[in-house]
């Protein structure tokens, strides 16, 4: 019985000092474990060299009306298209209600440069490169781009019109450094 009295010596309000020590020790170990897991998870994120925002300069002087080129920025394909007047008119004719991701052509181009449609060539569905930038490729039901992987159709303003992709082709950040040179990034 003496030993029991000794064991109960530290009890106040039914809480033993040992319970407190147990909980404190395990909690502290838990905090330590989380602190160790953080860098182990974070190492998977894009590294500094990948993140270093490279900017790409593109000479657009050689792209005739109705033509497009494919270039790359941050290792992602970029489409630069010189829209024809008919394509601009067609893009402006589409009612906003018909669009899954409602945006006007003006919102997707720079003021006064409405014929220059610059987008990432990355389908917003699962990331394939859509067709339509090169001569003779399938441009889909809406005359813009067509992604053959899962059948997404983009219109002349590269807006999603049909198929599984949720949003329009992404317009990357860019500036016209002169009339013939564009800097992306």
């Amino acid at each position: 019985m003496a030993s029991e009295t000794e064991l109960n010596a530290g009890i106040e309000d039914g809480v033993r000092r040992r319970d407190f020590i147990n909980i404190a020790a395990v909690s502290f170990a838990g905090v330590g474990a989380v602190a160790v897991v953080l860098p182990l998870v974070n190492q998977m994120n894009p590294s500094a060299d990948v993140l270093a925002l490279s900017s790409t300069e593109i000479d657009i002087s050689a792209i005739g009306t109705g033509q497009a080129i494919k270039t790359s920025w941050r290792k992602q394909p970029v489409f630069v298209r010189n829209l024809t007047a008919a394509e601009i008119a067609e893009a402006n004719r589409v009612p906003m209600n018909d669009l899954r991701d409602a945006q006007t052509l003006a919102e997707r181009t720079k003021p006064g440069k409405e014929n220059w449609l610059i987008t990432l060539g990355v389908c917003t569905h699962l990331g394939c490169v859509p067709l339509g930038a090169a001569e003779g490729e399938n441009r889909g039901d809406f005359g813009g781009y067509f992604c053959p992987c899962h059948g997404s159709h983009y219109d002349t303003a590269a807006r999603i019109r049909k198929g599984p992709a949720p949003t329009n082709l992404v317009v990357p950040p860019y500036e016209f450094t002169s009339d013939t040179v564009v800097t992306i990034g």
Partner: protein
Amino acid sequence: MSFPWAKNYEPQQPLMKWLDEKLPLPRLVYNAIGAGYPVPRNLNYFWNFGVLAGAALMIQIITGIILAMHYAANVGVAFNSVEHIIRDVNAGWFIRYAHMNGASMFFIVVYLHIFRGLYYGSYKAPREMVWLLGVVIFLLMMATAFMGYVLPWGQMSFWGAQVITGFFSAIPIVGEPVRQWLLGGFVPDNATLNRFFSLHYLLPFVILGVIILHIWALHIPGSNNPTGIEVKDEQDTVPFHPYYTAKDGFGLGIFLLVFVGLTFFSPNMLGHADNYIPANSLSTPAHIVPEWYFLPFYAILKAFTFNFLWIDAKLWGVIAMFASIALLFFLPWLDSSPVKSSTYRPLYRWFFWVLVADVLLLGWCGMQPAEQPWVILSQIGAIYYFAHFLIILPIVSRIERPLPMPNSITEAVLAKHADDKSAATA
């Protein structure tokens, strides 16, 4: 575990006696796959596929470890290092093609193993845990196979990685950061290839661990059998060794014949020619399809082409594809019929075969471009797949009148034997 009449391990030689006292490993083997493990006497050849799947995993691990000695996981040289293995490394062509086709063989035997489980009701009580662990193994296999396919860094490797990591970008808000976290960049690149190689090397050993749990869980109730009737007494069983070691050995011979036939005579039959073009991040192959074993799930992904109930088509496709596998975790509770074997389930048997046809249809649609009529066929196939598990199975298992069943495995075997005899004399 095991039955009370299981033979006991009795080492004869002094060395084995000594070993048994210190580390009873021979005892473990004896009780797991030796004469000390009683198994139903009526197993048919569909019961070979578990052992064959284990053999396939061992082939993958051995050939994989060898390939890793010659392969270089860097986007600059990965493609060429695989060519180097095929052309320059001594017997490299054989090891590489064995690994490549070994993956297909692994999936073939696992799909037949799952088919067996579905037909004979092996997923039901008391073997639910065996089934659940099996689904975990299946998921791990899919992850491993996908990452392995990325390693040669051909066009299909690259675009497969792009599309499959793209699934995660469908998750609202956190999707794109999650995708970048998985890739370690904005597109599949060196960081992606390196981590996939690391994980592709790790996961087979995780699979091996889960397989041990799978077998452990199996050995508590023991194997199911073609009648679905539980073992009642010693008459119903035979020792695993030599009866099933011999039967599995025969099956293994057939398996190896098919495997070497594929590897030696038609090693690229199940692959895609595009993967012999080095990865190009600026050009998607005209027609991208996954490896054959993912096709039914890929068809379900592609079946969603329209937004529906505030959720966009992309997210629906991804949810449906993952759900089509996650659904299997609930199977033991969706099918409430106490009768296991389809032999005694006249109604379920029909729906089972329709499901098999449906999965084959989905697999075929998965190969086709995203155009009509394939889209509508994938949609019908996908709807039926979910309907089978969520609607048909729960209803059938309640309304079905099972056929009269024999009292025991022995009775079923002897009745069959008597039938054969009378047929022979008539």
